[in-house]
């Protein structure tokens, strides 16, 4: 299955992936309208420290601890993609407790979680973070 992989040597720390993620999942087709004056809450996050930077998003683990631990059954695997059913989620954050990558976070209203679904559930169809990365520091590949 194709997954997102990170090459931190090529990451510029430009945060474009975060903006593209927030736009792709905004439901809007106008990036300016979607992001203007908004504190973005992207599903991919840059870590940076002393000249090193890299992006972190869901790894879509083959043994997903989040899915096994989810108390509601809101997290499930569909063709290798780990998805969240926001109607079932109650925001208990058991997945936040168990994800070894810190890749699951509260959604915009704080009452349920959000996570990377590889843009399979928005109009992009393929990861917007990867498509917009100017230096190919994140790639979407079969390995």
């Amino acid at each position: 299955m194709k997954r997102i992989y990170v090459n931190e040597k090529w990451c510029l720390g430009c945060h474009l992936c975060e903006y593209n993620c927030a736009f792709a999942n905004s439901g809007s087709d106008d990036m300016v309208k979607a992001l203007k004056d908004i504190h973005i809450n992207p599903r991919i996050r840059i870590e940076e420290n002393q000249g090193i930077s890299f992006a972190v998003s869901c790894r879509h683990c083959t043994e997903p601890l989040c899915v096994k631990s989810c108390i509601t059954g809101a997290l499930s695997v569909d063709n290798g993609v780990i998805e969240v059913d926001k109607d079932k989620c109650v925001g208990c954050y058991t997945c936040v407790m168990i994800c070894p990558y810190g890749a699951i976070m509260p959604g915009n209203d704080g009452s349920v979680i959000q996570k990377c679904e590889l843009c399979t559930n928005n109009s992009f169809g393929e990861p917007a973070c990867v498509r917009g990365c100017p230096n190919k520091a994140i790639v979407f590949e079969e390995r």
Partner: protein
Amino acid sequence: MNYVIIGNSTAAVGCIEGIRSVDQAGKITVISKEPHHVYSRPLISYLLYGKTTRQRMKYRPDTFYEDNRVTPLLGVTVTGVDYENKKVLLDNGDGVAFDKLLFATGSSPFVPPMAGLEEVENQFSFMKLDDAAALQKVIDQESRVLIVGAGLIGLKCAEGICSKVKQITVVDLAPRILPSILDEAGSEIVQKHIEEQGVKFILSDSVAQFTKNSALLKSGEKLEFDALVVAVGVRPETKLAADIGCKVNKGIVSDIHCATNLDGVYAAGDCSESYDITSGQYRVLALLPNAYMQGEAAGINMAGGEKVYDKAIPMNAIGFFGLHIITAGSYDGEAYVVRTEQTYKKLVSKDNLLKGFILIGDVARAGIYTSLIRERTPLDTVDYELIKEKPQLMAFTASERAVKLGGAKE
């Protein structure tokens, strides 16, 4: 192959999914006293609160049994197991033959003897869907509710009904709330937050005498109530297993394959014990993720696969009235504490390992800490100073990150 699972909650689902990952053909029968499609027990408080519904709180879709070719016998009680003849005996007189058996019997509320308790008409436990439904029926905006027990169950119940009733009083013998997961400072912060929502606590006290609608406390205080919830604790359901010779301590004893001492018999979930790697002791870890992973391991092993469950730790993610708490492990060791107006953080390390943590208020990326505990990562292989500040992958070496994020092989 005939697989029989006694119980129909998280461990049972883990077992079914585990079996089906190995064996598509074997016959699976699930037997439960409760007449309901599998639902998430911890969601009963969210149901009363109004954050979920009976449909949305189903732990697996309506087609789950059909999709996995499971025969559910719901609303049926197991009266005993005939281990010699490999048969589970039911209250309707039937017997179900098994080759492999899983005890996923869970736990039951522990109600200590309390004088006059039998006079209280409106008394409830708070574990099952039917408990929640029964409680919901008797409460209204004028109700005064007494909850005995300031643990996870009692306090989630308080949150669930807080906006539906007039008054909630929580009484506990212990001097502080949630002692099983929090330290003193943490208990104090969470108690204050819950009190601000109008819940009253009476701690270091207990009920000396009940009448129909009142409780006289040891301290002499008298409380009037319309409904009583007893949430003092739970006890693993071990009798069926013990009766056939399964070794039982507090819970049913099972190994890292989730097998009991009897050939072909397994145990998983709240009825069983796990080896807690943080304390080095076998304990009942009555936690939903633990139940799933034990059940899954049991199922795979029952079906002839190989799966060990050897990373059990106590861990809880819970929230009360918007205040989130994540805790894991045990708290014996060197503590690092940061307290701000809104948040509390405690990390406990010992022997070059992270042993436990408490996060209140800010729980972001807590799983990075949990993973250090589960994987027993030596702290001198990460930048502990950096990770103490906040959970981050930056604290790992570049080559470790290449494995975690870059797809490099270990």
